[in-house]
């Protein structure tokens, strides 16, 4: 009888963590995706390219400048638990794919926000970079993705400067 109780107590902690992951993690992700979508609409008027040259109609009177954005996002307990199973079976880790996507989009939105704040309406040569500060290589390390976006902001004469 005692053994059963001990087992139940030991099981309840991971189950509780899984539940928290399910409720809070899923809500956080949904809210973040919603915020990203609305900010992407807000910045839809800006010209963003990963081409190394400036678009036609670049305004020479305003000097181009470097802009950047950064985001570090962690996964939740449920998703890393499920990913553990997936790693045995192989195949696509869909929850981590969404995590990478969120970090990249968040970094780009921060880059665009900086560009707009500085009075630019276009960005070219956007590059993405990731840093590993102990997420994937560590045994007890947290599962998180770090994404950094940088590019050159400039002003296009042909568009309204917002």
């Amino acid at each position, binding site marked *: 009888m005692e053994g059963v109780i001990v087992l139940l107590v030991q099981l309840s902690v991971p189950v509780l963590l899984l539940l928290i992951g399910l409720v809070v993690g899923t809500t956080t992700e949904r809210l973040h995706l919603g915020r990203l979508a609305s900010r992407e609409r807000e910045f839809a008027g800006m010209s963003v390219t990963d081409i190394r040259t400036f678009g036609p109609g670049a305004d020479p009177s305003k000097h181009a400048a470097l802009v950047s954005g950064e985001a570090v996002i962690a996964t939740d307990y449920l998703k890393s638990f499920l990913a553990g199973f997936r790693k045995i079976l192989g195949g696509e880790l869909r929850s981590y794919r969404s995590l990478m996507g969120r970090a990249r989009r968040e970094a780009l939105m921060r880059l665009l926000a900086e560009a707009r704040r500085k009075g630019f309406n276009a960005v070219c040569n956007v590059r993405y970079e990731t840093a590993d500060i102990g997420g994937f290589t560590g045994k007890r390390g947290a599962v998180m993705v770090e994404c950094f976006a940088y590019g*050159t902001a400039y002003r296009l004469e042909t568009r309204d400067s917002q």
Partner: protein
Amino acid sequence: MILVNTETIPGMRIVELKGIVQGNTVRAKHLGRDIAASFKNIVGGELKGYTELLTEARREALERMLAQAEQLGANAVLNLRFSTSAVTQGAAELYAYGTAAVVEPE
């Protein structure tokens, strides 16, 4: 100092190239942030402490690069690149490099 990651600047002409300038920094995260991060791993979401840490580290690498460019007498850095490498577990090297140049309005 004009900083761009393109090879040209609209309205500016390259007068002289000064060569490659670079700056780096190796940063470790600290325990307090680790504890916050392990908590975040249950609920998910952004790790603001790490975001700040990386932004600050990149700024430092960039500043070291700019100091080199200034020493060479440049007023712009073209084709700027950022790079990272894992040195040891829990630490990362952030590296910024570019071409220092003297530019003037056309």
